């Protein structure tokens, strides 16, 4: 599979006003590739640099040293800014602060208006996007009257209307209740499965990360782990030492394993756990 985002030896440091030596590297010599069609989850505690990593992908930030190439364009090249952003959409944490318009469908149209899509084509794309996230019946509503999960789905519709090839979501569920979280995660999975959109999901929730194809764990500005969810979560002690958690079932298997039972610590879902425990206890 081809790489759509290539991060090569990237170091990033926020430029402070006065040139003091206190500004630390948020990311240090990171190397990562994101492949077309992947569903990647990025984990890391607050301040680990995972948000910065997301912002480097679509040229909101550019590396202090090293190169980020998105769809072959160097993100430091300002002429290619909008080419990159049309291909890589971004959804943010706070649903309120990314909706521009006072009516749902007008908000979904915002990006299309910016890139000059003709009115008749725009109508079709807005309706399609709203139907894809199951918010079509709310097209005439005011955003502030919607629930958090619904707002976030409107934000996603605004991105997919632009037909991006990749969507980066920066903790899209952090401010939502369990129902809203489920709505958003189901939508994200559907976009990956049915539309083939590459997903980079930054999250605190282990159950959400467990649904990805690949998990990248960032700690102290570096890649700590990178692999399949079951392999990453099996490193229970390491994850806990960097302030992260594992799904409850993985933890159970880990504890049982520590106590000398022959359990597989690569278990990350309820189904897998039920099956393994049945075998153990029967």
């Amino acid at each position, binding site marked *: 599979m081809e790489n759509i985002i290539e991060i090569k030896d990237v170091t990033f440091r926020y430029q402070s006003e006065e040139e003091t030596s206190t500004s630390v590297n948020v990311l240090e010599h990171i190397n990562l590739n994101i492949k077309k069609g992947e569903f990647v989850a990025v984990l890391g*505690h607050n301040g680990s640099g995972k948000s910065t990593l997301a912002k480097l992908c679509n040229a909101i930030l550019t590396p202090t040293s090293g190169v980020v190439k998105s769809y072959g364009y160097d993100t430091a090249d300002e002429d290619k800014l909008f080419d990159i952003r049309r291909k890589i959409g971004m959804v943010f944490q706070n649903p309120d602060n990314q909706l521009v318009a006072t009516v749902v469908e007008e908000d979904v149209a915002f990006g299309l208006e910016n890139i000059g899509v003709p009115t008749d084509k725009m109508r079709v794309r807005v309706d399609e996007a709203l139907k894809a996230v199951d918010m079509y019946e709310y097209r005439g509503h005011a955003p502030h009257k919607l629930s958090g999960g619904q707002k976030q789905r409107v934000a996603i519709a605004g991105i997919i209307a632009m037909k991006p090839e990749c969507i980066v979501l920066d903790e899209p569920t952090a401010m939502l209740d369990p129902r809203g979280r489920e709505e958003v995660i189901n939508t994200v999975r559907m976009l990956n499965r049915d539309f083939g959109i590459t997903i980079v999901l930054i999250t*605190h929730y282990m159950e959400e990360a467990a649904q990805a194809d690949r998990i990248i764990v960032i700690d102290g500005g570096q890649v700590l782990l990178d692999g399949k969810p079951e392999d990453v979560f099996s490193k229970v002690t390491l994850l806990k030492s960097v302030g992260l958690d594992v799904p409850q*079932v993985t933890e159970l298997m880990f504890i*049982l394993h520590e106590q000398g039972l022959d359990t597989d610590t690569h278990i990350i879902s309820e189904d897998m756990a039920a099956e393994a425990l*049945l075998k153990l206890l029967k």
Partner: protein
Amino acid sequence: MSTVIKTENLTYTYGLGTPFEKTAVKDVNIEIEEGELCGIIGHTGSGKSTLIQHLNGLIKPTSGHIYIDGLDIWDKAVKIRDIRFKVGLVFQYPEYQIFEDTVFKDIAFGPKNMGFSEDEVKRRVEESAEIVGLKPETLLRSPFELSGGQKRRVAIAGVMAMEPKILILDEPVAGLDPKGREKILAQIKRYRDQKNATVLLISHSMEDVARFTTKILVMEGGGVFCYDTPPKVFGRASELTAMGLAVPQITRVMNRLKAAGIELDGDIYTVEYAAKKINEYLLKHKSES
């Protein structure tokens, strides 16, 4: 133990007489004992947030009564500000209420409003900062340059410094990473133990509620669905699931084992307890065979 919070047929209707009229809390009768660490769970819109704002008199009920320490808080003889000092309320995302230029001053806002001497205010600020794990030198910094998790702890300390007998928190760990969540929950527990306080907290995380609380209040559609100990509440897993509330993942797995004919006695809702029960089960069956 004595009852510290009691509500009697508590009902509240929003926007009475407008097209947006909605009953948020309906006929709620609860009694919470002193020293309890009570988790409140329920969907968004189940009336949790409205209920807790009644308990310190921020919202006046449409009908019904609220008793704090046996006092009817809307009785003419009761000053509502005194009730607010007795019942501390930490809102969701409390870091947005920070306004002073130093952490010390911001935490001191509550105690100052209560009219304490400077020495007493200082003692309270330092003590509550200590409980939430803020270093003494942090007190002199501007709260606006702290990290999100630190700001959250400053805001919580601001309410703890009022040393309320009852501390109520609306989703105190929302949006934090696992480590941050763990820290704040432990600090809340510490406050309760040090001050012999009663704590109520709203949470969406069943896992946290299961590990952390002594009682659970489940709200549904503005009313109380049940109020009981965690094992009893999670023992009704199927009803909770039908309501759309997720029970802890571990409980779901154990219920599936039960359905497959493997009976681990006791209602299991934490990982450690599950591990213990599985070991017991294996021991018992090995000795049998």
